[in-house]
């Protein structure tokens, strides 16, 4: 068997899947309100009740994870906000890479590449926006002024368009893109092959190889 390295710990993977499932539920039940042609599915508040159940999971899951995995949380948040010159290089080289598999201009990446970090940042920011605007629309519905509630829908929709399209991209890259054949393994099983790590996350692999012995 080839060498493997641990990419994501078990709690992190569980959080990822719980959050992804709730996010997809929120996405689909939200879509029903966004696309009038799907409106008939929302009859008698059904999808709106499901949206609320999804929202509870969406909000509670990270709140349980964070105190239990404080170090990983800190590391993750730091990563979401550290950007540098190599990210610009990545963004420039990415279209060629993702369309033709030409990787000669791709700068070496850390544990998350620029695109993954961009998505991660959007998850953090949009998650906060969804939660704040969503809770206002939910619980202040009969008390807040009409204009406030209307603008909350507006902001909720901006986050929806941004995070929703990025979600499609995320699922596509994780599951379908011909080159990303081990990314799903990292988040499903936790481990990826040393070879894949060297190739896709060179900077991170060096660190890991130095600090820990590589599992085989």
């Amino acid at each position, binding site marked *: 068997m080839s060498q493997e390295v641990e990419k994501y710990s078990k709690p992190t993977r569980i959080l990822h899947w719980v959050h992804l499932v709730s996010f997809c539920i929120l996405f689909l039940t939200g879509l029903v309100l966004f696309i009038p042609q799907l409106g008939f599915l*929302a009859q008698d508040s059904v999808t709106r*009740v499901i949206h609320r159940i999804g929202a509870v999971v969406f909000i509670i899951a990270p709140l349980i994870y964070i105190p239990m995995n404080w170090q990983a949380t800190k590391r993750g948040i730091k990563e979401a906000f550290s950007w540098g010159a190599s990210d610009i290089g990545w963004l420039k080289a990415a279209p060629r890479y993702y369309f033709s598999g030409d990787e000669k201009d791709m700068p070496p990446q850390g544990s998350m590449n620029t695109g993954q970090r961009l998505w991660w940042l959007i998850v953090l920011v949009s998650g906060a926006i969804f939660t704040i605007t969503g809770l206002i629309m939910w619980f202040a519905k009969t008390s807040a002024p009409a204009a406030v509630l209307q603008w909350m829908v507006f902001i909720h929709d901006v986050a929806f368009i941004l995070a929703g399209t990025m979600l499609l991209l995320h699922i596509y890259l994780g599951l379908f893109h011909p080159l990303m054949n081990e990314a799903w393994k990292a988040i499903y099983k936790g481990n990826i092959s040393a070879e894949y790590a060297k190739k896709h996350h060179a900077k991170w692999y060096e660190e890991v190889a130095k600090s820990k012995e590589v599992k085989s």
Partner: protein
Amino acid sequence: MAKAILYDTTKCTACRACQVACKGWNELPAEVTTNRGTYENPADLSPTTWLKMKFREIEPGGKVRWLFTRRSCMHCTDAGCVKVCPSKALYHHELGFVAYNKDLCTGCGYCIEACPFDVPRSDRNLLTGIAKMDKCTLCTTPGLDRIAEGWEPACVKTCPTNALQYDDRDKLVAEGRKRVDSLRDAGWANANLYGENELGGLHVMYVLDDHPSVYELPVNPQISAATVAWQDAIQPLGWAVGGLTVLGLGLNYMVARANINREKEKKDVAGS
């Protein structure tokens, strides 16, 4: 041919027969209320009160005036509620009214926030979010549809002073203007026909003997900025961004797979 209701405040005696007729025809139960020291009752519109008369006392120049106004859906041409309704439960009737298919209502409450006249009402469970909206349908509620029978709405039918009339909108505009002219001749300098042009033309118009603000009607009512930004900017943007993303991903899949397969073949050939 658009139809409309014309309500003449100067002929209204606030007997509230219309209010009762509305309840009767639409099978809406009475509400238990308490005496608030006014004939105005109930205090507000509700899911079971789609029409109520509003009473107002003012003292211009020390002379008491008792003013009556109808509070109900104005059946706007540019209706904010129809614009925001995500399930198409609210829609424009062929005669111009804002009709309502209650089965389709999901209870989001967007219409309540979008209505410039604060008309739609719902009972809402704040925890589950379950709700159903209600408002005047101008007697087009399925099963209780007077209009389809060629009848007048229940409120108009019952009005003893003909303060309410139902007819072709054009005719009623002409009628309303005539009435306003005669009021002006009688010394009511601010008399006006409310609803002739507001929001693209309302299908419930009022003959007023004074400025709309005196009757606490919104002067120059508008669709809110948020409604416009949301429906005319964010909605199309969502469609464009979503569509392009799906297209882009599909394209990427086809191109990338073809390219990568070609590379592999090259390697295989070189290796063998």
